[in-house]
């Protein structure tokens, strides 16, 4: 009969193997990173362009991203899709505030051919009138559907308040912008930000050096010639902003503030504070608002990073009748971290949890590549994660309290509720 009362003895995580992909420098601005050690037939490539939302106006960056596979003078969109799908490729074009990324997952034997198709497609988009028309009609419909979701509306309002000081960062897509865009504007943006916009290439997979050389040659013409800076000075507009949504049975809550990224001295320790507050199942917010009060299916907090700055966010969807009660409890939890020291037990729990999660983030070539990239974007090497290990081990309750006092002031937050 085993002892079921006592937890089996735990073994501490003493070290983690971090493996960097091989760097191939393509120019002053652009590198290719290759993670070759993949023990199976899968592969992936990512093409990063300096073509994020902040580089344009009126939704244009997002439309261009969505039209990258819409056809060249030689090939229709259907033909391009057929070439990729016939080789088993899964393609995704994604856009964020500062980046546009084209990603393909496929078997490694088909990577060279799919890569060629995708790069030609991006280089040669003609913005055919019918394709553009069809795309904009679809966007209009999907925007209208999104606008029926409290989560989407709250996220948009929050962005407006969070990036209040920068028009290009706080931009929210509107139906009138979809109606107003011209093909000329799309072509101009494409020329400027794609034909001269590639700023990173990532390849994961057991791909030969010959193929890597082919890839390097293929992308050379579209490498960005000089990298424009990203803003490092954004401040949020504090205050509470509420919006009614007729018929909603839940309210979406988003609150937070501009903060920093990996380049700030407080980043690693703040990450621990963030975990305590809202970044795991046993966090203060989950324990109080879900597991004690039952107000929500889920609540969480996070730090989001941008090239030159970052922000802190708490997000949840709660019953409409308990929206104010939820905000009150969030306030209590952020203030409790300022007024009371975290107990050693809780800190030990969070330490162990974070070490386990860091071990998991480095597990396997795909996870390891993404971990590497999230340091690389801020000019950090993998040594950064050894610093993270040290910071998790050395953190004290006093330091947590100091950071909470500095960064979790209720009056500094932009608070948005839609419902």
């Amino acid at each position, binding site marked *: 009969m085993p002892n*079921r009362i006592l937890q089996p003895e735990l073994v501490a995580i003493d070290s983690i193997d971090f493996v960097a992909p091989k760097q191939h420098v393509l120019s002053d601005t652009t590198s290719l990173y290759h993670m070759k050690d993949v023990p*199976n037939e899968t592969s992936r490539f990512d093409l990063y362009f300096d073509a994020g939302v902040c580089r344009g106006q009126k939704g244009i960056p997002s439309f261009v991203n969505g039209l990258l596979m819409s056809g060249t003078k030689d090939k229709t969109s259907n033909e391009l899709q*057929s070439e990729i799908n016939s080789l088993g490729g899964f393609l995704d074009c994604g856009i964020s505030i500062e980046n546009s990324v084209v990603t393909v997952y496929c*078997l490694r034997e088909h990577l060279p051919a799919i890569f060629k198709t995708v790069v030609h497609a991006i280089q040669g988009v003609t913005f055919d009138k019918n394709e553009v028309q069809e795309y904009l009609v679809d966007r209009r*419909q999907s925007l209208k559907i999104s606008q029926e979701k409290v989560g989407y509306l709250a996220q948009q309002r929050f962005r407006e308040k969070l990036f209040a000081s920068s028009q290009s960062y706080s931009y929210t897509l509107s139906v009138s912008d979809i109606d107003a865009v011209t093909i000329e504007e799309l072509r101009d943006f494409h020329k400027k930000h794609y034909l001269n916009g590639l700023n990173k290439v990532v390849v994961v997979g057991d791909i030969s050096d010959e193929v890597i050389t082919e890839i390097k040659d293929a992308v050379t013409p579209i490498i960005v010639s000089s990298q424009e800076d990203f803003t490092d000075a954004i401040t949020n507009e504090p205050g509470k902003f509420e919006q009614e949504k007729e018929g909603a049975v839940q309210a979406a809550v988003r609150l937070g503030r501009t903060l920093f990224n990996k380049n700030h001295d407080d980043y690693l320790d703040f990450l621990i504070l963030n975990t305590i507050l809202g970044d795991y*199942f046993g966090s203060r917010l989950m324990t109080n608002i879900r597991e004690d009060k039952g107000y929500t299916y889920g609540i969480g907090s996070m730090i989001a990073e941008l090239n030159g700055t970052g922000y802190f966010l708490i997000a949840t969807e709660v019953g409409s009748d308990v929206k104010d009660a939820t905000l009150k409890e969030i306030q209590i939890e952020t203030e409790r971290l300022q007024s009371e020291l975290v107990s050693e037990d809780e800190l030990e729990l969070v330490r162990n949890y974070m070490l386990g999660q860091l071990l*998991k983030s480095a597990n*396997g070539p795909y996870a390891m590549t993404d971990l590497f990239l999230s340091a690389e974007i801020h000019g950090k090497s993998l040594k950064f994660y050894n610093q993270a290990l040290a910071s998790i081990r050395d953190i004290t309750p006093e330091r947590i309290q100091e950071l909470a006092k500095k960064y979790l002031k209720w009056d500094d937050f932009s608070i948005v509720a839609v419902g």
Partner: protein
Amino acid sequence: MISFERFTLDNGLRIIFHKDATTPMVVVNTLYDVGARDESEDKTGFAHLFEHLMFGGSINIPEFDTPLQMAGGENNAFTSNDITNYYDVLPSKNIETGLWLESDRMLSLAFTPKSLEVQRSVVIEEFKQRYLNQPYGDVWLELRPLVYKEHPYKWATIGKEISHIEDATMEDVKSFFKKHYNPSNAILCIAGNIELEEVKSLTNKWYGDIPGGQKPVRNLPIEPKQLEFREKTIERKVPADAFYYAFRMVTRRNEDYLTVDVLSDALGRDKSSRLYLSLKKDQNLVSNIGAYITGSIDEGLLVISGKLNNGVSFEDLDAALWKELSALTTELVPTNELERLKIKIQTSKEFNDQGLLNRAMNLSMHELLGGAEKINEESEIYQKITPEDIQRIARETLNKTNCSLLKVKADNAE
């Protein structure tokens, strides 16, 4: 090829062990052979509510999550109409904490009234968040009872209505546990860099003394063959008209199951599929369209769904759609099209098998379906599917009398 070992404890617990020497993590996956189909019609949503209660502390351990997090691990669970699956992912050195926690909640729960009250509200909020407060969110609550008249697939995992969750009692909870949560009704899969001998001794230690219990006998009503086309229109405050064509299909264990999967891919997996090319790109009737199968163990569904473009009527769509469907019953799928579908399936399988957790969950599911070794047979079955197979299955499946259509009419469409 996914290698594994299998053994059974004296109490009937089936254990699958999959060794992966490349990972520092270990997965402890527990599949219970119980889902929403095992509920009674006046107490729906119960299997899922119960899943939440499995985190509310067990007989000897007041809290599930804290010790696991203390071991550097994390966990989650999901409930479907067929099964309930719990998983823990933790550093392999601390595997014993995972086994300690999982075995204790298999032994017995704490059954605290507080846990029931809180999880009841959490699940009601989940109901609202996923099904009520989203455009088109309630579609499956409407579609299931249109298709299924007898079989318990007629209600969704979340439940038929919120009141069933509100009315659940502690007595219901206890009897549900007693009936379904025991070693003979579970499959445990352990995956990671450990040795078989260690797995044997640890599982014996932690699970060996749990009473085996009785594997419940499942005696579900058989859904009678559908003999007529069914149609229902609901009006909702949504921006666009939407359609859901649901065709009854074979069971998960039927030898034609994977052929139906390929058929659905031909219709609507990606931007090279038939419906996308014809109804969207050529005829401009829809803004999006896709086809998929539900993956149910009992007779499931092949579903074609999408949204209409402004100004297009349901009738226009209907005529164009049936034309495409009938092409599959009258003409053979060209070989190059079938090759395209197969390579896509193979690629997604390779990616799926990459993740340790996926492997553990899939091994458990295949063990339930008839033997974990079947996980390695699927690729070959897919490869052998011929154009004639697809045509035969299309003829059996894509009939009007086998179809239920749910239309969501936008009551504020422009």
